């Protein structure tokens, strides 16, 4: 993966700080630029957690509005994107829980979906199978951490900042999640063998 040179990174961060400062002073056009820059990642995160495009859009938009409201109090202790992802993640988890309850109530059989048993360790996991495996085998916290770490490309430190956990806790959750998924995959491989 090609990374921009450090000076470009610093320049981008400085510009982002300027935009945040302008938005904090009430400049909606600066805030619009911030939304344009972060919309895709915010939406993607919400989509991965809620697994519903309509809800993801709603949640991500809500998160941006919440960010606008809370901007005057933003002190810049973390980066703007970390802060935004924190808000998106929290709101998405809340929405996902509501959706999960609703799905269970409306279609208890369908909610179970197809078993993942036919996926052997040697096969490649399809996106849907991977998502289902995560939903079935991981706790909410583990699922979220795996999503942020593997799909969003956050570092352990950034995941900790987003979720308000220390790095060791994140590492522990990641290790347990890997073990749970691996065991599920091994088990399904053995079952299908």
């Amino acid at each position, binding site marked *: 993966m090609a990374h921009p040179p450090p000076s470009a990174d610093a320049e981008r961060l400085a510009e982002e700080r300027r935009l945040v400062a302008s938005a904090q002073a009430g400049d*909606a056009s600066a*805030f619009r630029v911030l*939304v344009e820059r972060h*919309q895709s990642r915010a*939406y993607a995160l919400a989509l991965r957690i809620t697994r519903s495009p309509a809800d993801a*859009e709603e949640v991500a938009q809500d998160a941006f509005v919440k960010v606008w409201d809370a901007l005057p109090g933003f002190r810049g202790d973390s980066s703007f994107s970390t802060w935004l992802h924190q808000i998106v993640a929290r709101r998405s988890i809340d929405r996902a829980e509501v959706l999960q309850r609703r799905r269970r109530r409306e279609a208890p059989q369908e909610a179970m979906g197809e078993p993942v048993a036919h996926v052997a*360790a*040697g096969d490649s996991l399809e996106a849907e199978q991977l998502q289902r495996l995560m939903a079935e085998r991981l706790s909410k916290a583990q699922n979220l951490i795996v999503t942020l770490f593997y799909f969003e490309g956050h570092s352990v430190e950034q995941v900790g900042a987003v979720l308000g956990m220390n790095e060791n806790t994140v590492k522990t959750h*990641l290790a347990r999640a890997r073990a749970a998924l691996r065991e599920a995959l091994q088990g399904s491989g053995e079952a299908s063998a």
Partner: protein
Amino acid sequence: MNCETFEQQLDAGALDALAPHALAHATSCARCARALAAARALEFAFERHRATQRVAAPHAFVDGVMARVRLRQRSASNAFVRDSTPWWVGLAAQPTAVGAFALAALLAWRGPWLWTLTQQAFASGGAASSFATGMLASAPEWASALSRSVLPVSGADWTTSLAIALCLSPLALVVGYALYRAAERMFEAPIRA
């Protein structure tokens, strides 16, 4: 290297950094070989889906956020404070407005009496320039008369009246604050695009 240590290394997620003796263990242990294959399949799946699942935010996402922000600005009761006015204006506005409402209510209710009281203060001070001195000199009498007049309780001394007035003052503050918020909306700042 035993199976437990090997699995701990898999849980840590550093598959590329597995030591040669760990890999050697996997070749001699069927269980650990399956675990390694499952771990690699998972890492591969995460990597593949991270690359392929780049999602773009829906069309008009930004416009949706900005429309909600504008709506928020219109309805936000602190839009006036968010504008370019210095922070201390916002800080001072609320108590000042509450005080103004309270004074207006007092004038409407006990206007002539307040006027008489002011005249008495002038008279005891001797001149307009010593108004403040006169007010200070007559402060005990003024407080007593105020409490008796504002909340006359038949058969009670002035301290009882004062105590009742103090108990009711939070109510007056709440009403004053509500009136202030209503008035504030009339002077909401124009919305900037």
